[in-house]
């Protein structure tokens, strides 16, 4: 696999992660625990495709479904809270998933799961990205998508208009978690080795950066955000040693100059 191909694969996985967080965020459901969904998808998919010989596409879907079920379970307590509470709650969920896999011996515990087959191909990922982007765009145009925007803008008003808050919130969480689970499956079969430490807070924060940095008023936002966050450290290889520092400084700068995201034409309501 060439250097450019692996960069493209990582970029595509990150685009999927960005979209997976964009969908709940479009409904005002902020999550800082998306690495948890990714981990569930990665482990389930790896167990099925590499250890049990299930077809890769089916295993990817199974990983996505498992993550979506987890998304529904997180979604329920999340129904009661919003804003900062939701952020911290999802953060705790991500940590619980990581600690679970750290202690779960059948998947190798802290030493991780080895011997995963290299089944991820760029073409497969491109197809997944196109489908995910299509779903996100269509969702935006659909009745449910408009309901999501309404919930994001003003929950009380949305509910008064007859929107079923619980349905919209849980649905957005589950769809987002499904995509994150599929991304996790691709990731596992690209990295060929997964361990709980790969799905820590930093990965959740990364997905959060894709969306908030890119802007979450259109689907283009998380894609641009993912490209920015993925490609920048590659471009910055010339300052190797201080890569993360430079990247961090750029993040601060981006937040100062474009507080509504790189792609953010519409000003969002905020505090």
């Amino acid at each position, binding site marked *: 696999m060439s250097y450019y191909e692996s960069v493209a694969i990582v970029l595509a996985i990150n685009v999927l992660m960005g979209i997976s967080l964009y969908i709940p965020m479009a409904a005002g459901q902020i999550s800082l625990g998306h690495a948890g969904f990714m981990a569930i998808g990665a482990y389930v998919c790896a167990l099925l495709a590499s250890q049990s010989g299930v077809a890769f596409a089916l295993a990817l879907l199974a990983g996505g479904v498992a993550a979506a079920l987890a998304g529904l379970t997180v979604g329920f307590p999340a129904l009661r809270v919003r804003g900062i509470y939701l952020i911290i709650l999802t953060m705790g969920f991500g940590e619980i998933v990581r600690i679970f896999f750290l*202690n779960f011996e059948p998947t190798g515990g802290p030493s991780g799961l080895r011997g995963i087959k290299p089944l991820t191909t760029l073409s497969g990922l491109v197809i997944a990205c196109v489908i995910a982007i299509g779903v996100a765009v269509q969702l935006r145009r659909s009745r449910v998508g408009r309901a999501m925007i309404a919930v994001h803008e003003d929950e009380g008003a949305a509910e008064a208009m007859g929107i079923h808050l619980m349905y919209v919130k849980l649905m957005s969480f589950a769809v987002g978690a499904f995509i994150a689970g599929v991304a996790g499956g691709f990731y596992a079969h690209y990295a060929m080795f997964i361990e709980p430490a790969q799905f820590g807070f*930093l990965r959740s924060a990364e997905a959060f950066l894709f969306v908030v940095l890119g802007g979450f008023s259109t689907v283009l936002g998380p894609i641009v955000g993912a490209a920015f966050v993925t490609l920048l450290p590659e471009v910055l290889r010339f300052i190797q040693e201080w890569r993360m520092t430079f990247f961090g400084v750029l993040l601060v700068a981006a*937040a100062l100059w474009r507080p509504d995201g790189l792609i953010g034409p519409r000003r969002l309501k905020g505090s």
Partner: protein
Amino acid sequence: MLQQQLVNGLMLGAAYALVAIGYSLVFGVLKLVHLAHGEVFMIGAFIGLQSVLWFKVSPVVALLAAAAGSAVLGMILELVAFRPIRARGGHFLAPMVSTIGAALVIQEVATKLFGSEPIGFPQTGTVTSWQFGAVQVSSVQLFILLASVISMLALHLLVAHTRYGMAMRAVAESPGTAAILGINPNNVILLTFAVASALGGVAGVLLGLSFNSISPYIGIDMGIKGMAIMLIGGLGNIYGAMLGGLLLGAVEVLSVAYFESSYRDAFAFGLMIIIVLFRPQGLFGSSYHVEGRA
């Protein structure tokens, strides 16, 4: 056995509380989470450790140095990562991006300065232990407890009984009204960051002493735990954070004693989710923050 575990939990919890109070103070005045606060904690631990290693100072001096250094770092973070965004009226998620960025910078600088291997405090002098009935307390534990209690007491006096504390509470209530009444909210917020970060730095030294393992990566875990404690106690409520910290310390130590120790960190988040389910405003918070602008 149970009493001993509870005492151990109390020591740990007191230090946790100091971290959580930092989050609560910042949340109180800004209604924002400070995602780089865990790194401030980490830098505090390193300042304490390095001043003991290099200048052979006593633990108390190391603690004060850590508090001062962290306070300065906290104020820099407010000036760089929060104030400019506030001035532009950015979205409430923008400071989270800038603080994640700042956290990355602090972590990498710490890795370059101190290396990525965990280091512990040098063993100086003998650790004495006292026996109180069935409970044994070491001098290190006593130091941790005393330092935390004194810090919390000082904070309480500052917030409840001084003009600065009154200004902090006024800004937390309403920055606009406070400004009309002649309080400069920006100065108060800067002061709040200094106090919150100083407490975080103190906690860094204390937990560094307690676990005797300090690395540039301790900030993330402690940061998430501190936020969980803040949520357990109620957002923006410093007394809730104090009690939440003690509660979590006790739960963790008991979980290690009676369940599998590798799950100890999961208990913090499990407790948090249960509390959010049944009492979303936290143990001591008001319902205002849940439904309000938070």
